[in-house]
């Protein structure tokens, strides 16, 4: 490779004027105007460099060319200065790679002036593709003629290329030669010509294709029909329904492959004067069942007033009603007339899973309030995806009347159906149901109780928080208590940010005689994490109940800042109880990392201390996991050193990658140095790949 030629003058010139504004100022800044003469001069310099360009050489001129072209695009005077230079370039002995770039630009700015040189290039060995980059896009009859002239060449590859360009340009003057080529013995040429005639379309092309239909060899037959359909579609776009209808009908009658048959059918549907319902019904009756799904697609084109649900009655005698596809289509377009049939299929326990699923799904769009109970029943009795689908349809069933049905259903139904209805109140945002839900938090059925508590978490307002705390105190099982903890916490989060979110819970601590309830309340205080509550929790750290103590440690561990750091550190330093030690150590690490105010240096110091307090491999791993979240060079260095410990190597490798991903932005050099060291130490392909990705990004 030869060294890249420099365009430093151009670069400095253009960049000075245009580029430097990108991220420092608004995008509306207008570049300083450059005169056409200046543009010509600069373009000349770039083209001089471009003349020697090849694919494996520097393309440092490209940004300059693009910036300069921006000026050309908006300055007609500059265009007239630049185009002759490009023409001259194409006539020169510049390399093909450079000419390719110039032709791309001429494709955007070129005029009739460029056509002669492009015509020459078109027939030059190996340059047709390059010439067409411009010629295909230059508007006007001169370019059309240049392409047409080449059609007579005895060069199949060139002919096909030109045919495709004529088709893209929709050159009507090409219809006659293309019609001749359509009858060529060369099948590739014939196929290209047929396709091009379809693209150009119009009355003449349509007639010529029609004339050829009967005589076309079997290998071309479907291509001709396809091209004729394209002509019909274009007639439709131009408002000529009559000619379009003729083609659609004839192609349909020719019994083509299903894709073409569908195209013809859809065209017939749009051009037919027959009642749309009857059209669909009659075709369903006449056509092979395999084609029915295509016919049903026509439903998507119906007006709102059209109802297709009666089709089930009108086809009752048929062996093959495409139920599945009708359910899906009619539900999608919101055709409520299919409702009865959908319900019947569910009540009759339709055996086919796909049909049943389509029916359930349909109710989300076309269901009625009374369907809520049916859906709840299905959700209660079904399993897997069907259960989930029934739930989703229940949640999406519209209207306030549906909500009324659900409320009355909760009272009237029992067991799992009641539980599903209760569950839906939360998902449907039925806040008017909260009173009712409280009633069912003491239902004998544990599922009903669980769902009631869960829904209350979504719906209850802070004003009734104390009622929810009472529910927590009355729960019998750990599962319910945990659900109540989540619900109470969710409700506290609905309070304004300056409200005392934990007041009610702290107020309830004194009334909690059951240690498990007490632990739950402590858990919630931990979730809220209000600094003023730390002293309250510290009191309970001295509790004689181990469960309460552990709850306090967990609550402190989940704190959103480093407020309880010293408590946890102290505990980890002093306790002989291994379980409490590990919990406290984990909490110590967690609160350090959670703190937004602490610097990375301080965090690292604390994590380093946590490492020193660790007494088992499991604890070391907890600390290393925490270390990996600190984006500092000290953390990276520690992680690298930990690679030497075989027991911790895996965790250390993961930490190195994670830390390096963070430090690579601010400390690319230091990170690179460390990562290169690590690559020499490790033998883990996945980690190596990840490190290389970071290094690639840095470099």
């Amino acid at each position: 490779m030869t060294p890249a030629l420099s365009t430093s003058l151009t670069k400095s010139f253009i960049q000075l004027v245009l580029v430097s504004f990108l991220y420092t100022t608004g995008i509306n800044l207008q570049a300083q105007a450059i005169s056409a003469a200046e543009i010509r001069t600069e373009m000349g310099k770039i083209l001089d460099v471009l003349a020697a360009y090849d694919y494996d050489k520097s393309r440092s001129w490209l940004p300059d060319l693009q910036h300069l072209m921006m000026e050309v695009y908006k300055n007609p005077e500059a265009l007239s200065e630049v185009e002759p230079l490009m023409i001259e370039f194409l006539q020169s002995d510049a390399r093909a790679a450079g000419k390719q770039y110039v032709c791309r630009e001429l494709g955007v700015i070129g005029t009739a002036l460029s056509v002669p040189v492009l015509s020459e290039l078109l027939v030059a060995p190996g340059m047709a593709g390059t010439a067409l980059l411009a010629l295909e896009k230059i508007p006007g009859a001169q370019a059309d003629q240049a392409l047409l002239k080449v059609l007579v060449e005895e060069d199949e590859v060139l002919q096909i290329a030109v045919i495709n360009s004529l088709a893209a340009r929709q050159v009507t003057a090409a219809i006659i030669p293309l019609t001749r080529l359509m009858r060529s013995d060369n099948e590739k040429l014939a196929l290209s010509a047929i396709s091009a005639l379809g693209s150009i379309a119009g009355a003449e092309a349509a007639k010529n294709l029609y004339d050829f239909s009967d005589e076309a060899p079997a290998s071309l037959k479907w291509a001709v029909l396809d091209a004729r359909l394209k002509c019909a579609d274009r007639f439709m776009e131009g408002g000529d329904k009559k000619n379009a209808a003729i083609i659609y009908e004839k192609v349909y009658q020719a019994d083509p492959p299903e894709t073409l048959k569908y195209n013809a059918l859809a065209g017939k549907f749009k051009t037919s004067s027959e009642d749309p319902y009857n059209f669909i019904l009659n075709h369903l009756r006449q056509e092979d069942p395999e084609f029915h799904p295509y016919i049903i697609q026509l439903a998507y084109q119906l007006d709102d007033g059209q109802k297709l649900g009666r089709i089930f009655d009108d086809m009752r005698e048929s062996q093959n009603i495409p139920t599945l596809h009708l359910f899906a289509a009619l539900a999608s377009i919101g055709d409520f007339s299919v409702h009865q049939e959908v319900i019947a299929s569910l009540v009759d326990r339709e055996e086919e899973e796909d049909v049943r699923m389509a029916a359930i799904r349909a109710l989300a769009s076309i269901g009625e309030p009374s369907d809520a109970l049916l859906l709840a029943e299905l959700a209660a009795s079904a399993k897997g995806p069907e259960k989930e689908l029934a739930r989703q349809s229940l949640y999406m069933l519209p209207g306030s009347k549906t909500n009324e049905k659900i409320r009355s259903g909760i009272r009237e139904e029992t067991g799992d159906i009641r539980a599903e209805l209760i569950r839906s109140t939360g998902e449907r945002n039925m806040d008017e149901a909260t009173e009712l839900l409280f009633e069912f938090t003491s239902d004998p059925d544990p599922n009903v109780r669980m769902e009631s508590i869960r829904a209350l978490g979504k719906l209850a307002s802070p004003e009734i928080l104390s009622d929810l705390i009472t529910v927590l105190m009355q729960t019998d099982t750990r599962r319910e208590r945990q659900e109540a903890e989540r619900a109470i916490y969710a409700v506290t989060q609905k309070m304004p940010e300056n409200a005392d979110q934990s007041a009610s819970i702290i107020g309830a601590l004194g009334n909690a005689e059951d240690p498990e309830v007490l632990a739950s309340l402590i858990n919630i205080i931990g979730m809220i994490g209000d600094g003023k509550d730390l002293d309250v929790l510290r009191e309970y750290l001295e509790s004689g109940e181990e469960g309460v103590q552990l709850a306090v440690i967990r609550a402190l561990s989940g704190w959103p800042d480093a407020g309880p750091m010293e408590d946890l550190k102290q505990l980890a330093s002093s306790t002989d109880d291994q379980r409490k030690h590990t919990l406290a150590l984990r909490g110590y690490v967690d609160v350090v990392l959670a703190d937004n105010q602490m610097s990375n240096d301080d965090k690292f110091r604390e994590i380093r201390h946590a490492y020193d307090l660790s007494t088992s491999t499991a604890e070391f791993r907890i600390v290393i996991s925490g270390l990996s979240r600190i984006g500092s060079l000290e953390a990276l260095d520690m992680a690298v050193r930990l690679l030497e410990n075989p027991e911790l190597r895996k965790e250390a490798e993961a930490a190195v990658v994670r830390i390096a991903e963070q430090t690579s932005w601010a400390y690319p050099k230091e990170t690179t140095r460390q990562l290169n060291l690590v690559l020499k130490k490790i033998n883990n392909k996945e980690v190596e790949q990840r490190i290389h990705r970071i290094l690639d990004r840095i470099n």
Partner: protein
Amino acid sequence: MKIQQNRRHFLKKSIAGTAGALVFPAILPARVFAAPGRTLPNDMINFGLIGVGEMGSGHLRSFIEFDDIRVKAICDVNSEDANLAVEFTNNRYGSQECTAYNDFRDLLARKDIDAVLIAVPDHWHSLIGLEAARQGKHMYYEKPLSLFFRECQAMRQAINRYGVVFQLGTQQRSDERFRFTCELVRNGKLGILEKITIGSASYTPVGIQPEEPIPDWLDYDLWLGPAPLVPYTHLRCTRNFTLIYDHSLGCISGAYGIHHVDIAQWALDADLTGPVEVEGRGSIPEEGLYDTIHTWKAVHTYANGVKLEYLDHISARKQIPQFNIPNSMGILFEGNKGWVYVARGYIDAEPKSLLKTIIGPDEIQLPRSNDHRRNFLDAVRTGSPVICPIETAVRSDTVCHQADIAIRLGQKLHWDPVKEEFINNPTANRMLSRPMRSPWHL
């Protein structure tokens, strides 16, 4: 459920001017009919994969888990990749039923294949999609829809003409966080929406790449297909093709950006339209193989005045506090009552209570899909609409093309979303298409 835009209207509008409907079914070849009045759908969807590189092989591992498809054919111009994927499939099935192909046309010509995955370089997307549609194959189609805008229109016409199911691989619509965010926006939970900011991916440039001998396992001419003829260098034919302008628009489209643009469009209920104005600035690397736009800022304006600021995430994290987190490839929606920032695996909001919002049945609820591939297969089996149909694909792609063209032209552009062209700007309109290398053509 109050659907802001009636689905019937959506579907009708989306097919205006062309034949056909949005999505549909028909696993016809193997359909079985049972008792009178009841159709038994056949058990298996015979499936083919076109492109089993990094993306396609991932799809293979996921699709093969569905028990209602059977992977019958695999195609790749890289014979090593194709053979490995076939071996994996046949080992999994304990049979020899899956066959390898080099040329997608041979796979698509098989009558027994019902549906295909298309996961090839961007410059090939539409041509293979068009042929698949012509052959009546339903398709899960990796994003983006197109390399240049006219391909979008050709694909829309083909899908509508031939009546096959089309799902674009912008799978964030099947992610609960993104759907929830869009529902918050659509239901006015942020107040009046003022601005959307997208942080897309960025990339590391590479130097000049030498010409290399074409490996014997690669059909390089077919790999290039409609792209300009250029010498082989191995980096071109890796996943990084997305960074080369002959093959992709880069991070502004297929290399991530399209995902977030698609979500912005969804949140704005703009699946039948799009921005009406765009301007932008950007840069390409000074040197090397990769020449797609590297850093940029484009500002799109919708007809309702909402601004979409579209940036690479490196720029976004420097400029906007919400992006200064580990996952800075995200979308920020800002209204006069709050904001939501959403990225893959991450969501944040202010006020935080927004995150606890329950969208009730009488509010705007968006279609639910929790598995993008399953959503596609359901559409193939039952005719239910897919979550990323062709019209949304066209409109999301359009936004990416707008940004790319505006940056390259350095001009403020005005777009007519009905005529689908720039207003009074023939130069910009000429950038809506690219000639293809013969014999390939739309």
